[in-house]
């Protein structure tokens, strides 16, 4: 029983017709989620290492990055990038797409840095000693021995962050990027079929979130190959 008011044009869209339009928006949402998470990972690992570094300048810089991007609201960060950068004194104009990816990536990356810090700390000290005994250099030791184990530990909290990222993408609609939320709003303004449109949008986000859950669980299975007691090799 669709509760919709006919808009002045008398046009009512069925669920079947709404869906493809929303899917276009969902595709943008997926892209932003994907590239945003890539940036977040690329930023989180050095930030975590910087935070744990014995060099004071480096650790202070990392702490500043983490606290600023966690402590201010994501929307503030997006608006800052979108409204402030194009004007003097920065004069840097980024497309809404770039602003979305950079803003989301840096924001979630700050939380990711804390997750990675916990994950790296959770790797047993004996692993460091074994690597030293085998004469690994610090870099090789981190890349081949510590990081793979840390990544596995980071998957559980990382999945939550990824879903947070997905939900946060809805805010890019407020800087005019045509993601799922933007399309939903657009359609609503055109047809006033508010109940169907937003219900559909909510369901689509829910489905995407579950897809992320399933995807991460299979990544975890692959990374944890052979680690489970009596598991398959």
């Amino acid at each position, binding site marked *: 029983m669709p509760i919709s008011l006919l808009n002045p044009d008398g046009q009512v869209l069925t669920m079947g017709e709404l869906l493809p339009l929303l899917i276009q928006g969902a595709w943008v949402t997926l892209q932003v989620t994907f590239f945003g998470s890539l940036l977040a990972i690329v930023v989180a690992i050095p930030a975590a290492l910087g935070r744990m570094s014995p060099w004071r300048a480096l650790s202070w810089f990392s702490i500043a990055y983490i606290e600023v991007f966690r402590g201010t609201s994501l929307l*503030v960060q997006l608006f800052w990038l979108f*409204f402030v950068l194009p004007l003097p004194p920065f004069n840097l104009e980024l497309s809404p797409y770039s602003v979305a990816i950079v803003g989301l990536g840096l924001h979630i990356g700050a939380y990711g840095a804390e997750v990675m810090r916990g994950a790296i700390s959770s790797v047993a000290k004996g692993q460091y000693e074994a690597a030293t005994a085998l004469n690994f250099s610090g870099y090789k030791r981190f890349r081949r021995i510590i990081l793979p184990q840390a990544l596995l530990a980071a998957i559980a909290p990382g999945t939550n962050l990824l879903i947070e990222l997905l939900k946060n993408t809805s*805010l890019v609609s*407020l800087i005019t990027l045509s993601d799922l939320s933007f399309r*939903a*709003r657009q359609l*609503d303004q055109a047809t006033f079929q508010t109940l169907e449109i937003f219900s559909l*949008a*909510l369901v689509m986000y829910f489905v995407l979130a579950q897809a992320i859950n399933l995807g991460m669980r299979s990544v975890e299975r692959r990374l944890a190959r052979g680690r489970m007691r009596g598991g398959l090799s």
Partner: protein
Amino acid sequence: MTLFDWTYAWQILPDLLRASLNTMGITLIGFLIAIVLGLFLAIGRRSRRSWLSWPIAGVIEFIRSTPLLIQVYFLYYVLPNFGVSMTAMQVGIIGIGVHYACYIAEVYRGGLDAVPRAQWEAVTALNIAPYSAYRNIILPQALRPILPPLGNYLVAMLKDTPVLSAITVVEIMQQAKNIGSENFRYLEPITMVGLFFLALSIALAYLVRRLELRLELR
């Protein structure tokens, strides 16, 4: 042109502060809604009557997995169709309150699960009515370890209030945008809003950590 126009910043400060009262008011009332509603949701989810626990679990999971923005749009544009008329601020507070109630319900659930089974059994054996049981025996034990996570969600909620600007709630971010568009200069208002959130969230985070320490020392 200087990097940061201090006179301009000083000029717009009163407007921003006034709007910040809105922000803090929304956060406080929304938080109250969240901690009360969250408790009921948690108890319902743990209920042994599956006709109650399953739907509630579904609702909690659904609201937690979907964006606050869409939920707020939903309430703002759909409710009038059902004859409910509320101001944007009221809708915003309810929207953010219900959203966080679902996160907080899970925190309560963890706290309630952590109360030793023996306590529940003692309550049954002594034939204490459910309301008194929760109020005097179960909740005091469940609540202490979950106060820090609750504090964290208070901070998170504060930082989520700008989302409500999308349904025209005039909180501090919306005010900053208005000021910026009037004066064609966004750097100062938005940076000041950022500093506002940063200062509040660091202060609240510090208080939460102090609270944690106090609880552990007992």
